[in-house]
């Protein structure tokens, strides 16, 4: 019995990052109609083609219904009660002037910097020590960007999305919506209509990005949906590793986050996209928390291109997220490594899609889920082998660890093959932390907490190994936070 308590204690944790920063916000009144879409576009001074694109997406969104197939339950969302644009005041003015951005950290609102410090993200320090360029997104408008010059030297473009719309409209026009079309799904259509800001990365031909690119997203304003739009393009032979991490302040009302991430890899290009997600999951009674309805998709367009998704998902009340790869180029490679931890009343429905179109395309899926409390944790994945994908290869492994007897672990893999030379393997297991393993480790003088810690860490090792150095540390720290409270 005590073992049971110990294990339960391992994953029960308080949310460390619950606070609200009091910065004057500029918010468009709640509600969504064509005028709001026009207003967002006008505020950002967008070119005509983008406004047209937004309106087309909005009109299509009106004809759609929210997806109901996921293994998650929540009350219907009133989209007319949400605000669709918010920006820190000073930054919003800058967005209009654009040229007048803060030149150094001194010009940034000190309260904002304080908030990052509370989160353990000392921007300048981190940037200097780790050599990471941080494009910090505070709600909707990018506040500061570092290491811009260093990247510019090699021709890498790393800036906020709204900035890219002005500085590189040709690239935006060429690639926006080519991976996730405006009408792809309900949330992607909503995002396409009202997206606020995000990051744009362009790695030119033959360039290996000299540093890991990183951005921090934070949701702040009350009742404001956050609609990030990220686009990463790696030209022929380019290489980039992109890191994304998030935390959000504690709040009672559910907040919607419907982001879209598009990756394009041309011939011989490699994109590695890593996420540590720790948004507010709601309290121990299932009240509040973020709705994380995200569409992430990579298009391995070129021959021999490679896209890797790595994610550690610990937060959000509801996660609906399927980072996918379209393996279009011959010999292209798609990878998905995921750890999803759920506790209390969290609901996770996450997985990946691997669409094999090119010849000799290969994909690997490793998904680990840990469910505790009264949470529901589902893997949902698709492996599709098209007629054209000669000698395609897929390997999938989905393991679930159950802690406590009031939660659920589910696996819903879709496997479709239309090519006789393809080989697909899928395996899945569901077990609890074995009493035998705990007993063995205890008999070797290891405390129960450490034993469980070791087992859970070992369970996730395959995925942590795939994370970039900086993130692997953060992920382990996150797990350590999850394991807090088990001492004594």
């Amino acid at each position: 019995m005590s073992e049971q308590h110990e294990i339960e204690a391992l994953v029960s944790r308080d949310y460390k990052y619950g606070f609200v920063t009091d910065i004057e916000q500029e918010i468009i009144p709640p509600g969504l109609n064509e005028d709001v879409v026009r207003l967002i576009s006008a505020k950002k001074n967008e070119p005509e083609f983008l406004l047209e694109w937004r309106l087309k997406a909005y009109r299509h969104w009106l004809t759609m219904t929210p997806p109901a197939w996921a293994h998650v339950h929540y009350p219907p969302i009133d989209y007319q009660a949400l605000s669709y644009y918010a920006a820190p005041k000073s930054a919003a003015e800058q967005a209009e002037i654009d040229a007048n951005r803060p030149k150094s950290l001194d010009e940034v609102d000190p309260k904002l910097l304080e908030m990052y410090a509370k989160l353990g993200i000392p921007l300048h320090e981190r940037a200097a020590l780790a050599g990471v360029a941080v494009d910090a997104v505070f709600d909707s408008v990018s506040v500061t960007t570092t290491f811009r010059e260093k990247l510019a030297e090699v021709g890498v473009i790393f800036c906020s999305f709204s900035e890219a719309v002005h500085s590189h409209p040709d690239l935006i026009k060429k690639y926006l919506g080519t991976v996730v079309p405006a009408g792809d799904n309900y949330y992607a259509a909503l995002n396409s209509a009202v997206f606020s800001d995000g990051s744009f990365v362009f790695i030119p031909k033959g360039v290996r990005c000299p540093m890991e690119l990183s951005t921090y997203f934070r949701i702040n304003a009350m009742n404001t949906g956050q609609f990030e739009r990220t686009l990463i393009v790696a030209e022929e032979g380019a290489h980039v590793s992109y890191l994304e991490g998030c935390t959000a302040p504690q709040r009672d009302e559910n907040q919607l986050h419907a982001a879209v991430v598009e990756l394009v890899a041309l011939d011989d290009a490699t994109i590695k996209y890593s996420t540590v997600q720790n948004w507010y999951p709601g309290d121990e009674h299932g009240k509040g928390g973020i709705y994380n309805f995200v569409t992430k998709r990579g298009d391995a367009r070129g021959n021999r291109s490679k896209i890797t998704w790595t994610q550690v998902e610990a937060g959000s009340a509801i996660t609906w997220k399927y980072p996918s790869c379209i393996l279009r180029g011959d010999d292209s490679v798609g990878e998905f490594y995921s750890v999803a931890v759920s506790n209390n009343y969290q609901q996770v429905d996450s997985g990946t899609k691997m669409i094999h179109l090119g010849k000799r395309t290969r994909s690997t899926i490793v998904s680990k889920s840990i469910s505790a409390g009264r949470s529901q944790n589902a893997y949902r994945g698709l492996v599709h082998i098209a007629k054209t994908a000669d000698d395609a290869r897929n390997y999938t492994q989905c393991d679930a660890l159950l802690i406590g007897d009031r939660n659920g672990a589910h696996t819903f893999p879709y496997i479709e093959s239309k090519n006789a030379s393809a080989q697909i393997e899928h395996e899945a297991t569901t077990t609890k932390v074995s009493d035998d393993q705990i007993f063995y480790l205890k008999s070797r003088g290891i405390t129960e907490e450490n034993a469980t810690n070791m087992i859970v860490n070992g369970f996730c090792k395959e995925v942590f190994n795939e994370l970039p150095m900086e993130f692997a540390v953060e992920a382990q720290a996150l797990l350590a936070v999850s394991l807090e409270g088990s001492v004594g």
Partner: protein
Amino acid sequence: MSAPMPRAIEPIVLPDWLRSALSQPASTRIAPSDQQMMSSEQFLAWGLPTARDEEWRWTSLRPIARLAIADAKGEQAAPADDAPHLPHALVIRLVGGQLQPLPKNVPAGLTLTPLSHAHEIDRAAAFQPSAQGRNDALLALNTACATEGFVLDIAANTVITAPIVLEWLDNNTRSNHSQTRVLIRVGANSSATVLETTHAPLQSTHWRNAVSVIEQGANSQLTQISLGLAGDARLLTDRSFVHLARDARYRSINIQLGGQLTRREIDVNISESGAHCDLLGLMMPRGKQVMDTHTRITHGAPHTTSNEQYQIIADDAGRGIFKGRILVAEDAQKIEAYQNSRNLLLSNTAEIDTKPELEIYADDVKCSHGATIGRLDDEALYYLQSRGISRSNARKLLITGFAQEIIDALPYPELVEQMSALMRAHLSDAP
């Protein structure tokens, strides 16, 4: 930049003959009248499911809407010459869904009653599975329209060693479709084997929408064998609802070779401790055949086990579909459930879709599933060829070896032999 918007899936327009079947006088139908009414309304509201429905993502029911109407002078169905012939079998024949007179050799402890003459309680039991909450249009249609069916009772403490053969001869002389309902009850400590075969004319297409309800008493044993024999044009949608009491053992072996479209659903509810089920299946779609099996095993009580193995071999433009769900309810601890879906895809115009699912709400369980879709092993082929076996023979050897794993699980040596021969013939026949 402007990718096309996804296209909507058109609903299936209900054909007139199906609408008129729903408006037949209630007295000719066998479900309790209140259920008939409700199910009829439900079906009309839902219509035939399309790919929009998650359960019908891979299988299209559009061929049903294209069925020709009944033809009184149409082709008669007769058991094929190569249908399995088992000595001592008790053969129950149903022509166009209608029960034919029983043979003389009915063993003691076995009773067979047409549903139209069955007691009200038995009829209620046969129509117990409700389409409500399941959103199951075909079950609703069956409840609304079922005109044929029977109750097969095996008394407690009865061991019947001879196979009970249900021979369905589906033809279009009375109607182009039949809605049949069967209730099989196996009493406590009893044991039986039920073998179902379906035969239909080669040319004209008949659709049978069948529902079987199986109730197994404590410590009973039932083997249910479903054989879809080669070479006819039938459409079959068939679902079994199996309910297992304490320590009961249920074994299902499902082998599909023929038919234009076959969709089987097996829903096993293990609601008491000690019970076990085995689900085995082999589907070999060729030509333009579509073969689909959906299984669902619900572990509703602790200390229950299940084992499932399904294999598909798809060739030509055939399509094989398997979806298996294992559900472990809250507090159903000490469960062991294994599921294996292994598939061979032999042609680039064929397609295999598989979806092994685990849905687990208890923690002290051992559950796993595996799924593979692949081709014949190049090295094995090379090895056989290096021993002087031609490539086509080597292929055949490997494919039959793969299929044999399921066929060998059949009871009765005669049956294994006859089905092996049918399987080999199915492989070599041109589509």
